[in-house]
């Protein structure tokens, strides 16, 4: 009934709309995307173009199938953001048809099967990533050669020829430049003759740990991680995301990496360096903070970030997958309803929501 609602238009308060929030996040991704395209792999831009176009296309079709108005749904730009995050998580050498399939999964299983924006319990980009890595394990873990648009001197080139050991696995990788530092670590392990993953992902000697650390520190991936961090700080400053999730993810991971060597004698990456390896920064600031699938209560966000960090650590260190953010986020998404239930309190009266509220008028 018109006229009975709050007159928000006449309040001089600049509220953010959903599309402006999505645009701010995309702006925060720009430094990282620029660095990625310039120094690491220029195919990123092409992949973003394909993924965004397909995402918009799939979303239009799905919204029409759901018998809703298409334009308002497309205008909120949330599917484009999810597609960009998916592209940033996969190797750029992924065949286009597999990327398109991933985008399709993102639109359907990740979002619209649950009812569209705001209704999905799982992070759509991570759902798509999980389906892709399970369906196409080879292409999803192959980081083949391509230079960035600029030729930076820090690119590590491993010129050894490839050879296969008796277990039929590559002991060295063929000229991979721009591989993620974690994949580089995998290579170092194979070089050292450590039996292939997933048995023991830690290194045997401190020298190898340092060497791995050097690799990371001197690679473009470090700059990329810093770019993600910068973008994340921009989002924090603009109060688009809350500090709780990124801080708890990073702090927990740091502690785990710092304390882990105490429990075993095997050295592992130094804690601070580990934070800048792989997709931790991207995950902490952009993926784990997706408001729809993350916890909403304040303390709940801390527990959610903590859980993601713990799971990510375990997956990274003890499993075949070099990067654990995706599965960690998905698993914690499952726990979100329970977390929110535990931490939502009727703080005005101090009672938990399980206590009966007063019946007084």
């Amino acid at each position: 009934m018109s006229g009975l609602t709050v007159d928000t238009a006449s309040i001089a308060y600049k509220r953010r709309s959903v599309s402006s929030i999505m645009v701010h996040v995309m702006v925060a991704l720009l430094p990282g995307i620029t660095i990625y395209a310039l120094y690491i792999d220029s195919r990123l831009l092409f992949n973003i173009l394909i993924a965004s176009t397909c995402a918009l296309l799939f979303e239009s079709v799905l919204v029409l199938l759901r018998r809703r108005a298409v334009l308002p749904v497309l205008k909120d730009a949330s599917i484009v953001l999810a597609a960009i995050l998916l592209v940033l998580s996969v190797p750029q050498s992924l065949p286009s048809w597999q990327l398109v399939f991933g985008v399709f999964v993102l639109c359907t299983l990740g979002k619209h099967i649950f009812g569209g924006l705001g209704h999905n319990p799982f992070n759509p980009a991570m759902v798509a990533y999980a389906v892709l890595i399970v369906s196409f394990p080879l292409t999803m873990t192959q980081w083949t050669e391509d230079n960035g648009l600029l030729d930076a001197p820090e690119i590590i080139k491993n010129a050894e020829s490839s050879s296969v050991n008796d277990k039929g696995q590559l002991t060295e990788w063929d000229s991979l430049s721009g591989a993620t530092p974690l994949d580089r670590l995998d290579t170092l392990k194979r070089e050292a003759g450590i039996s292939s993953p997933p048995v023991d992902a830690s290194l045997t000697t401190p020298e190898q740990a340092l060497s791995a650390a050097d690799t990371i520190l001197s690679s473009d991936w470090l700059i990329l991680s810093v770019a993600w961090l910068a973008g994340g700080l921009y989002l924090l400053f603009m109060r688009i995301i809350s500090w709780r999730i990124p801080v708890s993810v990073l702090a927990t991971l740091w502690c785990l990496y710092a304390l882990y060597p105490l429990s075993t004698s095997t050295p592992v990456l130094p804690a601070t360096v580990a934070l800048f390896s792989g997709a931790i920064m991207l995950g902490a600031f952009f993926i784990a903070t997706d408001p729809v699938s993350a916890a909403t209560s304040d303390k709940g966000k801390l527990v959610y970030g903590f859980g993601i960090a713990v799971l990510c650590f375990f997956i990274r260190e003890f499993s075949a997958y070099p990067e654990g953010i995706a599965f960690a986020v998905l698993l914690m998404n499952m726990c979100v309803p329970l977390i929110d239930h535990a931490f939502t309190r009727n703080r005005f009266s101090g009672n938990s929501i399980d206590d009966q509220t007063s019946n007084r008028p």
Partner: protein
Amino acid sequence: MTGTFITIAVMIMSMAAVGYVLSRLAEPARRTDDEDPDADIMSANLPDMQLIEEVNRRLPQTQCAQCGHPGCRPYATAIINDEAPINQCPPGGDALIEELAALLGTDVMPLDNDKGQTKSAQVAVIVEPDCIGCALCIAACPVDAIVGAPRYMHTVIADQCTGCELCLPPCPVDCIELHTINTPLQRWQWPKPA
């Protein structure tokens, strides 16, 4: 192979640990009877008499017999004895079905349309010029909302009338009408936004 098993085992244990921690955090505060009167009822450990009382308390008390039982308490008794489903009460409508489903742990079902439609609030009004003073309606009203005596004028106390329509059939001159009540201002409700 052992590597795989160890990985899987570690994953399961860590998930179990996370789940255990969360379950301890999420355990609801112990409820006593003072805090939640539904606590004991939910488990349906109550003797039947108390359950019948609980169901009766939720019924709208119009005593209209539209459900096929001669009053609300007989219907409540039939529900507890599994002789009647919970969707027979038109005055209670869908809200009542949901409440009973929550109370008894059964499924929500749509209102049985054979029993009648949920009507908006109504009261009976006696058309006084036509009333012959036979007192048959007084005997029929289940909540004694009609005052009068044989050969004296009868009238319905509007506040007490539940709109059950039981007084209409006995009247030999059909002088009772049903009027929809206008909600008084203090009971006006805000409309639900789309």
